[in-house]
């Protein structure tokens, strides 16, 4: 049984479980699924600075903070107790493309060439953590949601704005991956 859990899960299995989060949250507490809102609640709780956007009763939305804390714990449990002993299988074309860009480590979920603590105070860190993270936080709130709130919850509820937002997420991602990343990697 544990061996079955330890191997990487099929996309359909993962998709069903992620999809079931929508009715689970709705039915256990009338909560609409959405993760990026947690970032707003943390801002509202820690540094509202009299900004109207952060002046609301974030405690009423505390469920969202419990949820993301759970995600963090889930990540810890899965990695430390249920992890796949083999290395991640990445598409050979992607490996070839990334090797051409200068990525050498394909043994972890995240390449150590980029996502190591040593890189925090380097140009790589500035681009991949600081600028990338800033765009994630700024963009999701500007768009009014992320992959969970728009792509999954919004489209499940047949919301046209969510379909538009999801298309824009994808367009942004295609542009970065195929046009900008090759330029960025030239900097290193």
């Amino acid at each position, binding site marked *: 049984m544990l061996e079955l859990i330890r191997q990487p899960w099929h996309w359909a299995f993962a998709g069903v479980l992620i999809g079931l989060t929508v009715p689970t949250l709705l039915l256990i507490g009338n909560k609409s699924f959405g993760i990026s809102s947690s970032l707003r609640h943390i801002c509202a709780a820690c540094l509202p600075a009299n900004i109207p956007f952060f002046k609301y009763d974030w405690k009423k*939305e505390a469920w969202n903070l419990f949820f993301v804390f759970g995600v963090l714990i889930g990540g810890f449990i899965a990695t430390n107790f249920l992890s796949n002993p083999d290395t991640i299988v990445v598409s050979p074309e992607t490996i070839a493309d990334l090797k051409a860009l200068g990525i050498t480590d394909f043994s972890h979920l995240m390449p150590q060439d980029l996502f190591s603590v040593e890189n925090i105070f380097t140009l790589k860190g500035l681009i991949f953590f600081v600028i990338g993270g800033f765009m994630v936080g700024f963009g999701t709130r500007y768009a009014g949601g992320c992959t969970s709130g728009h792509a999954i919850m919004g489209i499940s509820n047949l919301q046209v704005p969510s379909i538009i937002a999801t298309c824009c997420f994808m367009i*942004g991602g295609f542009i970065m991956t195929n046009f900008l990343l090759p330029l960025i990697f030239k900097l290193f």
Partner: protein
Amino acid sequence: MNNTQIVHPIECEAPNEQVISESVFSNIKYAVVGMAFGIVFVKAEIISWFRIQEMFRLQSFFMYGVIGTAVMVGMISVFLIKKFNIKTLSGEKVIFHDKTFNKGQVYGGLIFGLGWAITGACPGPLFAQIGSGFLAVLVTFLSALAGTWTYGYFRDKLPH
């Protein structure tokens, strides 16, 4: 007893619509759901930067399969809840919100997309990556908080 009106955050996108307020203890159930969610993220390797690269290079069906299946399951669930008027555990009517279009969904969506491809993380996987021990992602997380705060600060000046 409590005459104060429930104050909703300005357009909170993932609102709590339960009328009965919940204790800290009661909130633990959301942490449990989140935990299951985080385990799925890691076990299906969705938190991997490589999976996001495969997706945006159209070199693997995996992420399209995950998101597509999740949307199908979510859609059927929402349909069933509406059709049979299924109530929450505490007997309340499930509340859905219609989203209204604004330009933020385009501009913000594009900005998030650019960031998603760099970091390999949307906000959910961000938390799971940190839990998985990728401590450098803590910087990404703090920077995402800064991004959200900056949006709040300049909100009125941005085109919507």
